[in-house]
């Protein structure tokens, strides 16, 4: 909302402007534009009108001119708060939150009477995580509107985010005191949440004793009884009042006997780890008697019992066989956790094999098949494909209508790298039950792995919404942000691109003719097509994550208004690590690899002399001709791969072309993609793998060294291995650093020093020896 009561509107143009503003706010853009143009005709320097015209242009889709007008307006009236405000609105709509915050702040600094702007400003500041200034905005807004609890909570959140715990607590306590006697039934939920929020801040500040005391005092205010008990148990435990803590955990178990965390916490509270095994076991047996339908009391003893104890064998047998006899499909998944211990793994395998050979055949037929299912998974885990296949085949011939068996068989084949075969088996599974969405998506995924993108999209289209005249569900898959399909498609397109590029290269090396052959032209086109599509799909994932982040903007006002500060804080923390969502680094790596490859090709072709240019021209002509002929084919293709209706660049060709242009710095693009990963996904191998490559190409050798160190930290946490892949990176870094003439000598020194401290074995004069040593 833009200010109405601005400075006194003495002149006519100001009155005109005010009128236009009203029209703009009620979205009557055409009429508003007419008025603004009238003013500008008389006075082309009228800054407010220029800014308003910029905003109108933005919202009517004229993006480029919008920017020009906003710039012009800011030039003419940088100190005019109306101009500032409109600029802020414009940048916020552009999702350029940094500049939006800047201009909203300027609006207030330049004397705008509209104090509501503090709220808008604070929402932007928290969105860009500018906690320092957030505190001031929240404070200012609170002073303006102290009558709303949400504003007090908002100030407390800002203080909390600045780690000012006591300030946050006193703000929350103050409003609690003020409204204590005026609470309605409808306010009770917010009251409960705020009290718990205050409590969690007290604890986070370190004074657990105080937190517990306040918690007990606020008992009657708290509606979320589960949170009350969990907080209480945690505090008691931290304060070393373990006996009391254990009682609360037992109470929690009564509420939910399936939550494994309560069992683990109870175990800690009772100090069972230090007690004799028998005692510990007895506790769990008792718990099992209390909660016979719960899994944790049966499973947890298997974790702490040593493999060589007789109890382990008996308990494991009871656990696994009772599930197999009931035909629980997830039996293997349930006990897989124990497989980390090889001795336990062998015992379990022996138990199940024995059961399979001797007992199962006399039981129900489904017991036999689920046992074979288990054994297939067991041997797949061990990498023994022969046996895994044997059991899978036996199971299938025993119960050929069980979908899971085919899915497992396909998985075994996938691990054997028999992708096409795996895909066929998965398809067989799908045909057994067409309405099974899970197997449908598996079949889609396996088709994508087999590079059959069109077929895959057709399969999953059975479960997507089909727009009118759409040939498949590709658009819906993008709209619904089905990341895995988009990513798998991108990877399939990348593989197709590489395969055709290879074919083209071998064809080119045999064809010495001046002109490209028909086949070459065709291949060339395919190469560019699949490369364009691959980049496009990867980019789609980047865009989806961007929109997730932007969607979170509304929560800054919503959560406080609803009075859910605890969940709000959690969602902030979560969105700080949005990039750690596993699928995101994978997409970035794929995209950046394509960028680096392209960069390499452009720089090598630039180095090669330009004598080829006549040939390329000819090629282009030929391509054009072929393209004209294939216009219809192209349209069909576009219909299949479009991600939104009437997309401007459906095949990614224009974007690819822009990458080829001289103004485009591909390495900068790659860096921009990698940088957020290094902040949000620091524990993901992919992050540092791809960051290393980008830094190396950019000549940022110290950062590349950091990436190596981070990779080493993740891949080799106990420093027990000498990894070949790491050694190769070290060698490449050293080489690149040495050969780069532009590098500062000091930097070389730092890198050298870094390498020799992390890899003392590295010796530049004996690289083969170093690589040999690093053989893992």
């Amino acid at each position: 909302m833009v200010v109405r009561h601005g400075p006194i509107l003495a002149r006519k143009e100001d009155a005109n402007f005010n009128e236009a503003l009203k029209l703009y706010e009620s979205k009557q853009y055409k009429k508003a534009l007419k008025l603004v143009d009238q003013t500008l005709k008389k006075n082309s320097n009228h800054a407010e009108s220029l800014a308003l015209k910029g905003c109108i242009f933005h919202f009517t889709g004229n993006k480029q001119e919008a920017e020009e007008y906003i710039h012009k307006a800011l030039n003419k009236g940088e100190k005019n708060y109306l101009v500032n405000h409109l600029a802020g609105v414009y940048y916020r709509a552009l999702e350029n939150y940094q500049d939006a915050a800047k201009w909203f702040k300027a609006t207030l600094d330049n004397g705008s009477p509209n104090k509501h702007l503090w709220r808008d400003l604070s929402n932007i500041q928290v969105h860009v995580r500018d906690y320092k200034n957030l505190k001031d905005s929240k404070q200012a807004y609170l002073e303006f509107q102290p009558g709303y609890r949400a504003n007090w909570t908002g100030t407390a959140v800002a203080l909390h985010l600045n780690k000012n715990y006591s300030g946050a607590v006193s703000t929350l306590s103050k409003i609690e005191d003020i409204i204590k006697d005026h609470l309605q039934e409808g306010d009770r939920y917010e009251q409960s949440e705020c009290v718990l929020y205050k409590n969690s801040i007290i604890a986070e500040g370190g004074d657990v004793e105080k937190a517990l005391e306040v918690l007990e005092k606020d008992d009657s205010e708290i509606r979320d009884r589960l949170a009350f008990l969990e907080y209480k148990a945690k505090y008691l435990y931290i304060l070393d009042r373990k006996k009391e803590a254990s009682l609360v955990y037992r109470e929690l178990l009564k509420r939910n006997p399936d939550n494994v965390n309560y069992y683990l916490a109870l175990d800690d509270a009772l100090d069972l780890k230090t007690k004799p095994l028998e005692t510990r076991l007895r506790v769990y047996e008792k718990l099992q008697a209390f909660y016979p339908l719960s899994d944790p009391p049966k499973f947890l003893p298997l974790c702490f019992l040593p493999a060589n104890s007789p109890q382990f064998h008996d308990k494991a047998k009871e656990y696994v066989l009772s599930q197999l006899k009931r035909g629980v499909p997830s039996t293997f998944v349930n006990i897989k956790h124990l497989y980390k211990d090889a001795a336990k793994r062998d015992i379990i395998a022996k138990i199940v094999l024995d059961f399979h050979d001797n007992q199962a055949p006399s039981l129900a037929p489904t017991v036999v098949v689920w046992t074979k299912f288990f054994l297939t998974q067991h041997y797949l885990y061990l990498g023994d494909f022969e046996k895994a296949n044997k059991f899978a085949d036996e199971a299938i011939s025993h119960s050929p209508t069980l979908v899971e068996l085919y899915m497992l068989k396909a998985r075994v084949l996938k691990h054997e790298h028999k992708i096409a075969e795996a895909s066929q088996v998965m398809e067989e599974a799908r045909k057994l039950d067409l309405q099974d969405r899970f197997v449908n998506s598996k079949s889609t995924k396996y088709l994508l792995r087999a590079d059959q993108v069109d077929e895959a999209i057709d399969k999953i289209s059975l479960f997507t919404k089909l727009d009118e005249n759409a040939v498949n569900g590709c658009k819906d898959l993008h709209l619904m942000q089905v990341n895995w399909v988009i990513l798998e498609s991108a990877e399939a397109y990348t593989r197709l691109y590489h395969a055709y590029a290879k074919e083209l290269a071998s064809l080119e090396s045999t064809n010495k003719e001046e002109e490209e052959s028909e086949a070459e032209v065709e291949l060339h086109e395919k190469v560019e097509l699949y490369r364009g599509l691959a980049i496009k799909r990867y980019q789609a994932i980047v865009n989806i994550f961007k929109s997730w982040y932007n969607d979170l903007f509304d929560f800054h006002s919503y959560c406080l208004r609803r009075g859910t500060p605890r969940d709000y804080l959690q969602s902030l923390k979560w969105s700080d690590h949005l990039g750690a969502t596993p699928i995101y680094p994978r997409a970035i790596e794929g995209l950046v690899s394509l960028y680096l490859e392209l960069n390499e090709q452009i720089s090598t072709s630039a180095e090669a002399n330009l004598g080829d240019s006549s040939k390329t021209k000819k090629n282009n002509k030929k391509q054009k001709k072929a393209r004209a002929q294939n216009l219809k084919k192209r349209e069909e293709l576009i219909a299949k791969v479009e991600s939104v209706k009437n997309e401007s660049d459906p095949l990614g060709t224009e974007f690819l072309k822009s990458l080829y242009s001289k103004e485009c710095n591909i390495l900068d693009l790659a860096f921009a993609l990698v940088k957020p990963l290094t902040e949000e996904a620091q524990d993901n191998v992919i992050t540092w793998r791809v960051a290393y490559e980008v830094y190396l190409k950019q000549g940022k050798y110290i950062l590349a060294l950091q990436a190596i160190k981070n990779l080493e930290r993740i891949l080799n946490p106990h420093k027990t291995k000498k990894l070949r892949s790491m050694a190769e990176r070290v060698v490449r870094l050293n080489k690149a650093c040495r050969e780069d003439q532009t590098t500062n000598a000091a930097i070389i020194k730092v890198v050298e020093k870094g390498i020799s401290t992390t890899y003392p074995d590295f010796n530049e004069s004996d690289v083969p020896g170093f690589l040999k040593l690093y053989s893992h």
Partner: protein
Amino acid sequence: MGRSVISLDDLTRNNLGTFKKINEVSLPTRYDDEWYEKSFEKNYITKLAFYAELPVGAVRAKAFNCNQIGASYESNQSSKSVQEGVPNSIYVESLAVLEAYRGVGIGNALLNFVIEDTKKRFIHEIVLHVHVDNTEVIEWYKRKGFEQKSEIVKNYYEKQNIANPHAIILSLRV
């Protein structure tokens, strides 16, 4: 847990693949896609049987006039002759149970379903062909009260690549 381990459910377009699979692995005779497509026509009785929620058996039968009974497997599987005359019997085209799940009552459940459905249609006869060498199945049907009708139909399964391709007709009065 109160629920029977054996249950019956309808055949739908989505689980037609399961029906196909059951017939393919359990019966010596072959059926083409066109045959399966007809399962959803009005005159057909179809049902899938489940053991512990796993589909393990299937039946398909149709109402027809027993004077129209054909002399070969193929002619009886195609529905052309069926249209004529008022239906006065139910012909079981296929009844299959996966090998590992035989002897637990699944065939029985499917047959009972057909019998009940036959009664509902006020028809009093169920007819079917069995391969002449398949004594196990013939015995099974006879235990259920079926009686052998007339003599052996020669070369009934001639085109199905089965040794000794003759069939007998069994029928049950209900």
